[in-house]
């Protein structure tokens, strides 16, 4: 198969620095404003009030978070808002030491998928962990730390992070 491999020209950093190749650059200025929609609009409103809310399906009975106006499994309209707890269980987590453009972070960010109490099993949301010691593990119980009401804006970041729950706090 070697004869059917084209030997592409591999450019090195020096080729640019020393002006051996020509190139063009563009700096896009793309801006968007997204409508939150019906289900997520209510979700954000509840976040602002310091609460998590889900939505349930009349056919499969799943209580879903993030909430949605239709069940993607039964393909029918969901029909009820279900108040949920602000506690949950860590389904998985990471310690991320770099930004998206691979710049080293001084303090790692700790994203996690957190199964929310009151929703159906496995129903998690993406959020961040904080106040975490090195013993962090999957299955750990956590609780939302809310921003003070005056700082909330109706955003997923109205929860500052989730912190571990001690067994005595359950």
């Amino acid at each position, binding site marked *: *198969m*070697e*004869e*059917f*491999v*084209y*030997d*592409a*020209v*591999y*450019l*090195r950093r020096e*080729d640019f620095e020393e002006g051996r*190749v020509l190139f063009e*650059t*563009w700096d*896009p200025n793309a801006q*968007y404003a*997204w409508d*939150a929609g019906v289900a*997520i609009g209510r*979700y954000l409103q509840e976040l602002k009030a310091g609460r998590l809310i889900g939505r349930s399906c009349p056919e*499969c009975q*799943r209580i*879903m978070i*993030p909430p*949605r106006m239709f069940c*993607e*499994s*039964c*393909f029918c309209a969901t029909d009820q808002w279900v108040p949920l707890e602000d506690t949950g269980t860590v*389904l*998985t*987590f*990471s*310690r*991320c*030491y*770099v*930004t*998206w*453009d*691979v710049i080293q972070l001084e303090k*790692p*960010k700790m*994203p*996690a*998928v957190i199964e929310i109490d009151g929703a159906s099993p*496995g*129903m*998690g*949301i*993406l*959020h*961040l962990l904080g106040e975490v010691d090195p013993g962090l*593990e*999957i299955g750990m119980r956590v609780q939302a730390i809310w921003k003070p009401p005056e700082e909330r804006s109706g*955003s*997923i*970041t109205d929860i500052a992070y989730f912190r571990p729950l001690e067994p005595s706090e359950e």
Partner: protein
Amino acid sequence: MYGNGLKHSGKRSNQRVAVVGAGMTKFVRRAQETAKELSWEAAHLALQSCELTLDDIDAVVIGTAPDAFDGVHMKSEYLSDGCGGWGKPVIRGYVGGGTGVFAAIQGWYHVASGLFDTVLVVCEEKMSSCKPHPQAAFLTIFDHTTERPLEPNLLWIFALEMNAYMNRYGLSKRDIATVSVKNKRNAADHPAALLGDPDITVDDVLNSPVLAWPVQRLDVSPVTDGAVALVISASQVARRVTRKPIWIEGVGWNLDTSYWTNRDLSYPVYVEEAARMAYDMAGITEPRKQIHIAEPYDPFDYKELHHLEGLMLFDKGQAPRAAADGVTQRNGDLPVCPSGGLLGVGNPIAAAGLMKVAEIFWQLRGEAGARQVPGSPKRGLAQAWGDLMQVGTVIVMGV
């Protein structure tokens, strides 16, 4: 629960379809050639490999991943001249990282439908244009309202999935690092490889910088530029063009929910569904006996293991043990990624998936040179994966 009760029709086409030619460019970190030029080089070599010209091509399938890599809107139209698309029916399929194998599937159904006799499939990716890092192109994959305010990056979803997989089956980093070592060593024999390394060790992987634990630098495939092309023909043409057509026996693809935080991340059920569809079509009832060689998608080392389990080639949680025991080595019982995979050859997204299909083509024809798997394999599969960790694309091919 998965979907709303999937049924596999096991339907086949009366039109047999074969891969008859393949060509590719070298995979490099940053190519001087433009995306169009890379496409042309691969397409032209694929035609040359089966002694056809563009006049013999009835339609063109183009696979290329996010437009945002290139900053070119509708980039398959931009690429089409380099892909041989001028004045022909052209289509682009796009399922993220799953695109490379999906493009071959599209090539198959273009011919299997009876619409066309011979189709040129070209997959190209030039990730290097996107500054300061092509990860920027992936930031918009997350939900704009419920996730992006948390400033996620693409590494998160891999790290979260890898941790879920390791935790479910009690796996160690060492169990998984063997995949990276195998693939980078295999790639040392691939003439197009970017990161082939015959001397790499498990400790090298375990000592590489931590990006997003448990993901370390050498667990990850590199940013890459490159292109790959295949020629796919109906049986009546294939038999005339070559003495060694490689038949496409089964294809499958499947998409999981985009509510990814509601899934069990430790098992790729969508890969299993795609595999079941392809196996049904190919008449495969015992994949572990009937598949002789596999090229599962390996953008990260754990993904190869995850996908081998989804493909039902190993029991859940058992692929790491098999890898440690040498089963997946090029001379093992089930050679896996003999090409060197994305970890070794490189990961120009759509082109990387089609490279896997090309590898099965070359291996089954006995033309893989120093990478040739012993024992004249008769049937192999390639699989890719992508979108928001949710699509599986599978193709089964045989002599």
